[in-house]
């Protein structure tokens, strides 16, 4: 059999599997770190959005509008090409983590904000009536309930983040998509490369999506 999916091409891909395993691990690593910072940004900005300080609100809204409405690939390009000119030198992984977290954090903030808003106001009143401060109420009463509400959409954002990590290929990020690009370019073998790369992304994302769907069903049942 010849053509893009010939046996020879498959053999060539599998004989270099360790190269892709490295990219796969790097994608996992960048995504995991990116996710941690996404959650931190989402939590902080999401809670600030519940406040009343107009300056803070404008700042949060500005951040979210900018990062939600420009392509991630352009944001990453700016970090890669513009930051060094300002004297800020970051490694590719740091740019990847920063880029993914700032971008996904803008969506995560929305999720945290709406999840907190979805907790009935009586909960905060009950907490205040017992003598909890605002922060204590958040920690002990509001956030534990908001997490249940926000977990399914947040999991979807985690999947998006993992898939979006593929844009780091444009700055030679060394992750899975970059491996696919460079290896297929060198060997002129595209069919198996991109099929297998897709399968590897699927291996990470599908379990998370299934988990999100299960959580969603469960929270619907609990209403």
């Amino acid at each position: 059999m010849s053509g893009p999916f010939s046996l020879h091409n498959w053999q060539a891909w599998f004989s270099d599997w360790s190269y892709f395993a490295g990219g796969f691990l790097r994608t996992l690593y960048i995504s995991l770190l990116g996710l941690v910072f996404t959650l931190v940004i989402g939590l902080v900005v999401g809670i600030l959005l519940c406040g009343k300080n107009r300056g803070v609100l404008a700042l949060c809204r500005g951040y979210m509008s900018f990062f939600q409405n420009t392509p991630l690939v352009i944001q990453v390009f700016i970090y890669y090409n513009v930051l060094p000119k300002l004297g800020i030198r970051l490694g590719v992984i740091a740019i990847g983590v920063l880029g993914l977290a700032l971008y996904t954090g803008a969506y995560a903030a929305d999720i945290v904000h709406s999840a907190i808003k979805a907790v009935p106001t009586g909960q905060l009143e009950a907490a205040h009536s017992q003598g909890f401060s605002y922060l204590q109420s958040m920690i002990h009463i509001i956030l534990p309930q908001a997490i249940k509400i926000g977990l399914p959409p947040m999991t979807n954002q985690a999947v998006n983040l993992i898939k979006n990590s593929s844009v780091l290929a444009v700055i030679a990020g060394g992750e899975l998509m970059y491996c696919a690009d460079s290896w297929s370019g060198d060997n002129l073998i595209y069919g198996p490369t991109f099929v297998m790369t897709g399968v590897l992304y699927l291996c990470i994302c599908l379990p998370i999506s299934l988990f999100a769907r299960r959580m969603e069903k469960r929270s619907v049942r609990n209403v």
Partner: protein
Amino acid sequence: MIVFDNVHVSFGSLDVLKGINLEIASGSKTVIIGPSGSGKSTLLRTINMFERPKRGDVFIDGVSISGMNKRVLCQARQDIGMVFQNFNLYPHKTVLENLTLAPSVLKHESKASVRERALANLREVNIADKADAYPSQLSGGQQQRVAIARALTMRPKIMLFDEPTSALDPEMIQEVLDIMERVAVETEITMLFVTHEMKFAEHIADRVLFLDGGIILEDGAPEQVFHHPRNERTTSFLGKILH
């Protein structure tokens, strides 16, 4: 003692309390009645500073509560329990945890002593068998009894009840009234009830206030307010309530 000194509360241009002057003796049981929108909830919520007076001030045992900073205010609220129309139990906590959360976080008491007091209070409201259940597994009447026990577990000096039976199915009202009556009779806590349950009010109240349009129109013993009201509007309101 709770003292209202010429308290005015407004929401935007809407004046809700129009100069309330009131002294509530420690340990007394006061029932507040009045038409919807007359400012009953606002009056209760001024005591724990959920609403702030535009003019005038409230004093609890001589201490002005509008002068308090946030930290002192939280401290003061620990002594003022509130029971809400919609219970507002914490749904992610068990019944027992609903009672123990605030005392263990805020009062730095030992787990064991808080737990013991919580269980005693659950027995007091006849719901000890549900200690490990979640609020969603309870009926409305059971949830409200847990809410009363939760407030009691903070060992408050004052308890505010804002229409505690208004959200209940009719067959559950009596069990909650019975519990409130027992707590009112057995404790020295200063209690204020907003309620339309006239029989309950006659049983437990030292004093009944009739609030209308943000003004106290009637203030007296239950017997006097219910059976010999001085104000025409009280008569007409009572007529509507008692059909």
